[in-house]
């Protein structure tokens, strides 16, 4: 076989004592040099997945394969993989240089070479001047970067990061996201990052693995995940999406036509060509792809506005249709002529040219 995946999880399951399922038959290929995020709600198994890769948890069933070699039973200290821990786990009895040099000293790197690499790693994360500092003297963001330097100085095949930015304030977090991305591409290293922050995952990942209840829901690029979520769960988790039950009413050339209550919806056929008349599907459509019209038209459905929320460039309207379905509609603010009010009846239609997606359960 030509280019193998760098790390492959094959049907990995992890059951904890007491019957809690941490991972449920996870298949995952991690490619060379990519920035992969594991995204999902609390308790979905992200950390467990990362710990299986690092070797802290042994899968109950399944295999972990690194560059073609089965490493399922390899202990953490024998794996060419390093972790940045959520609490940083810096050694409090060592200074910054000793922390960063810890891995090198175990690899019998000559002292002079160690010093050089430690200094280089600290320069890379912008802490060259803190080399003699004690861990207790560092701020949260600085500890984070020492932890990063300590891991990358070992030149791991894969760097694992468990919610590395969750303890930082919003401003620093955004800065560190860009730093992480910059480091990753300049080192050409493979990063696997756990996060429960979808914005973070969407902004820095090459691919995102969305997990739910120990299973993988979808693996896709940020854009594909946003535009074409595969399941109800992903659609509900990434951004805001209207989930509508709709009946297939026919095909019109390249378009599939659906009807959700009175609201006609259409999507391009290549998205899902298998549909039979009368079949029910869940359709996902983004708030910005719905239009609230003051007058009824050919392809509109009436809905009553329940609330209007200021949302920056848009006004977000929550409305309900005659059939009782809840709709979220984003209207660009300058286009709100005439202005709608809570209690008004508007006529909702799909924005011309906008598509929507069929979602699996």
């Amino acid at each position, binding site marked *: 076989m030509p280019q193998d995946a760098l790390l492959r999880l094959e049907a990995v399951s992890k059951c904890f004592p007491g019957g809690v399922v941490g991972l449920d038959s996870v298949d995952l290929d991690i490619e060379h040099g990519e920035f992969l995020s594991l995204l999902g709600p609390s308790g979905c198994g992200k950390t467990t997945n990362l710990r299986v890769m690092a070797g802290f948890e042994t899968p109950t069933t399944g295999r972990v394969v690194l560059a073609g070699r089965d490493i399922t039973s390899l202990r*953490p*200290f024998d794996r060419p993989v*390093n972790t940045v821990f959520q*609490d940083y*786990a810096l*050694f409090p009895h060592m200074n910054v240089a000793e922390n960063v040099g810890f*891995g090198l000293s*175990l690899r019998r790197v000559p002292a002079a070479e160690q010093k050089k690499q430690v200094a280089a790693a600290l320069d890379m994360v912008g802490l060259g001047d803190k080399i003699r500092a004690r861990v207790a003297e560092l701020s949260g963001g600085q500890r984070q970067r020492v932890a990063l330097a300590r891991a990358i100085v070992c030149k791991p095949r894969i760097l694992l990061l468990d919610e590395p930015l969750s303890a930082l304030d919003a401003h620093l977090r955004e800065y560190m996201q860009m730093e992480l991305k910059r480091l990753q591409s300049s080192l050409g290293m493979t990063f696997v990052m756990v996060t429960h922050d979808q914005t973070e995952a969407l902004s820095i990942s090459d691919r995102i693995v969305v997990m739910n209840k120990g299973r993988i829901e979808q693996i896709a690029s940020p854009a594909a995940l946003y535009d074409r979520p595969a399941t109800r769960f992903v659609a509900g988790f990434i951004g805001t999406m209207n989930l509508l039950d709709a009946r297939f009413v026919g095909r019109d050339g390249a378009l599939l036509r659906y009807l959700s209550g009175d609201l006609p919806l259409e999507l391009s056929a290549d998205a899902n060509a298998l549909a039979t008349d009368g079949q029910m599907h869940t359709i996902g459509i983004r708030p910005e792809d719905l239009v609230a019209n003051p007058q009824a038209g050919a392809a509109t459905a009436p809905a009553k506005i329940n609330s209007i929320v200021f949302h920056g460039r848009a006004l977000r309207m929550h409305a309900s249709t005659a059939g009782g379905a809840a709709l979220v509609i984003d209207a660009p603010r300058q286009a709100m002529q005439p202005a709608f009010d809570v209690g008004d009846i508007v006529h909702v239609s799909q924005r011309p040219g906008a598509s929507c997606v069929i979602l699996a359960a």
Partner: protein
Amino acid sequence: MMAPGTAITFLLILFSLALVVFLAFRVNDGSLLGAGFTLGNFSNVIFDPLNWSVMLRSLAIAGCVTAATVITAFPVAYFLAFHAGRRRGLILFLVTLPFWTSYLLRVFAWKIVLAYNGVLNSALVGSGLLSEPTLAFLNTPTAVVVTLAHAYAPFAILPIYVALDTIPRSLIEAAADLGARPWTTFRRVILPNAMPGVMAAALVVFVPTVGDYVTPALVGGPSSTMIGSMIQAQFGKANDWPFGAALSAAVMLVILTVVLIVRTTDARFGSRA
């Protein structure tokens, strides 16, 4: 709310300390507080070589007790912190169980174990390892060390256990993650971070054992007379309270010196706190 209690305790300790120092400078005339002032008691302490040899023996025995206690307590504390799982509570309870019986009773128990016709001798003779009982167990410094080490074991186990238990588990995982095998992790991460607990355990054992006189009297025999026995004799049979007070003050100074030396070296090696 705590202030009055603290003040009373503090005053009582200060009062008794001051009394000892005061007595140490008095001339012994048989009366309760002596008469007149002198430095003679201290010159007696310093210039009698017997005091030096007994003091050194006390330090040596206390040092052995401390080493034996800490070394045997560490594995117990380690097991409690890392491997006891759900039985942790039960084992902690068992560790403190000896406190439920009197200290004297536990010393006598060791007498029964170590005596000529005691448990150990009977077992050795019964199993054919010895042809006849030996006198080599009881009334030796070793008997003192064994008895004291046993008595102080819980005092050593608890601080070491707390130190080990409060080491974040992610530190141990981080060490493994960076390539450290279990022994290296122990040596370079667990042990340095447990040192404050080990030091606390050592002090808690060392300080009271230096001045102990009950145990040497009961299981030590003549070859293990400790400084505490001599002080006790001055306040008892010899009825020379000022000299006893001077001895006590000297012992306190020696212990203080040892503690200070240990603490500075400990700080040099950079413990956590």
